């Protein structure tokens, strides 16, 4: 066992510099490509960034106000404190999406304190879970991977369901499967149900988008329903993601299978 771990670590760390170096070369290429833009284009981009910045500053103030309100209500109701996270933004340096596995390699590892089992998210919702952490890189299993499972819930419905990845055909949007959905839930193409994460698994904070469900049908047990989850197509071409690092790691109870 020790030999296996040693061999795996040795070979992985030996090839990490090539991966990291190629990603920095990629960044350099992007830098020089941007240098080719005209001043006018840069001015327009600057104006758009300024607009976005003022919008996000307003949103940040609003979030601060709402968080203060939540803390006040939690104190009144004597609720236990929720799990807090630190966001570590990381660049994707490899995407390895096949029929057998769906992995991403990130350019941050133990050097940034990324733990195994941490949740990974992007603007469109859940990306996956960290399954391997090395010195300078980490490997993420995508939610579309056949080996991925997590607890979830439908938006506005607190009852938990099970989400799992499926083998992808490669044609069309990535998909997953939801099971253990209650019989009274109805999903149609016109009014799809939004599947979101729940805090029950311990890894993901509640409310992060997973995908949408356009139909549900009775499962093999006849008690619950199952359905197909349409995932965000951007999952296949991610460049930046955020790793959620629990701040109170002593209480961590991740749900890595």
């Amino acid at each position: 066992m020790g030999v296996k771990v040693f061999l795996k670590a040795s070979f992985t760390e030996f090839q990490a510099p090539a991966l990291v170096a190629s990603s920095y070369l990629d960044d350099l290429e992007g830098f020089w490509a941007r240098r080719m833009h005209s001043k006018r284009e840069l001015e327009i981009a600057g104006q758009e960034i300024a607009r976005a910045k003022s919008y996000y500053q307003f949103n940040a103030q609003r979030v601060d106000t709402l968080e203060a309100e939540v803390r006040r209500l939690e104190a009144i109701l004597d609720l236990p404190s929720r799990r807090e996270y630190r966001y570590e933004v990381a660049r994707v340096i490899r995407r390895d999406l096949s029929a057998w596995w769906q992995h991403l390699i990130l350019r941050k590892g133990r050097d940034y304190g990324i733990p195994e089992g941490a949740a990974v998210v992007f603007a469109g919702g859940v990306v996956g879970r960290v399954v391997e952490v090395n010195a300078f890189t980490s490997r993420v299993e995508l939610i579309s991977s056949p080996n991925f499972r997590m607890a979830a819930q439908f938006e506005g419905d607190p009852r938990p369901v099970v989400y799992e990845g499926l083998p992808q055909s490669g044609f069309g949007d990535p998909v997953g499967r939801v099971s253990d959905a209650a019989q009274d839930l109805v999903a149609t193409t016109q009014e799809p149900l939004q599947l979101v994460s729940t805090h029950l698994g311990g890894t993901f904070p509640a409310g992060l988008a997973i995908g949408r469900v356009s139909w549900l049908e009775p499962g093999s047990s006849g008690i619950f329903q199952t359905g197909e989850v349409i995932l965000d197509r951007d999952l296949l071409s991610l460049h930046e993601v955020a790793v959620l690092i629990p701040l109170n790691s002593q209480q961590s109870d991740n749900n890595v299978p």
Partner: protein
Amino acid sequence: MFLDPRAIIMFGANALLIFLVQLVNSGISGWPVYLFILGPMVVLPALYLRHQSYFICTLCSGLWVDTTLGVPLGFFTTLFLVAGAIIFSMRLRFRAEHNYHPILLAHSVNLFLLIVLTMSAGGAYLGVMSFWIQVLTTLTCSHVALLLVAPWFFNFERQLFEICHLQTEPEDLPLL
């Protein structure tokens, strides 16, 4: 000599091949195409080297591939050694100095590896249509790409032997 210097060159070429294939796969991740090109890595070590050098080169290449692809350590290592041992035991029958036989062997080994991977990693999804669509797409694309990659790869390895002033012919018989 315990380790033939050509084994180091072949291992380096194998590492380069998997790096380039993964680079392409990462670049085309939005397309329904995935390249699975591992077959050529086993062929020349089994045809060219004596058994110690062949074993060390194939073992290291297998471990390298296992860590690159994130499969359980030893999976491709074992398959490489099995496929290499079969080629090694029959290498009298093949003309290693030309590309025809090595290319055929590369296709056969690649197909063998893909089938074993599909049966072991995708055992739970053999009844899922999307899985078979992806596997068949991968199989087709990989073997079409292999028609171009395999001759380049074998010529590249022989060119490296020449540059390093090493023997460009297979090791003399007897086999062991």
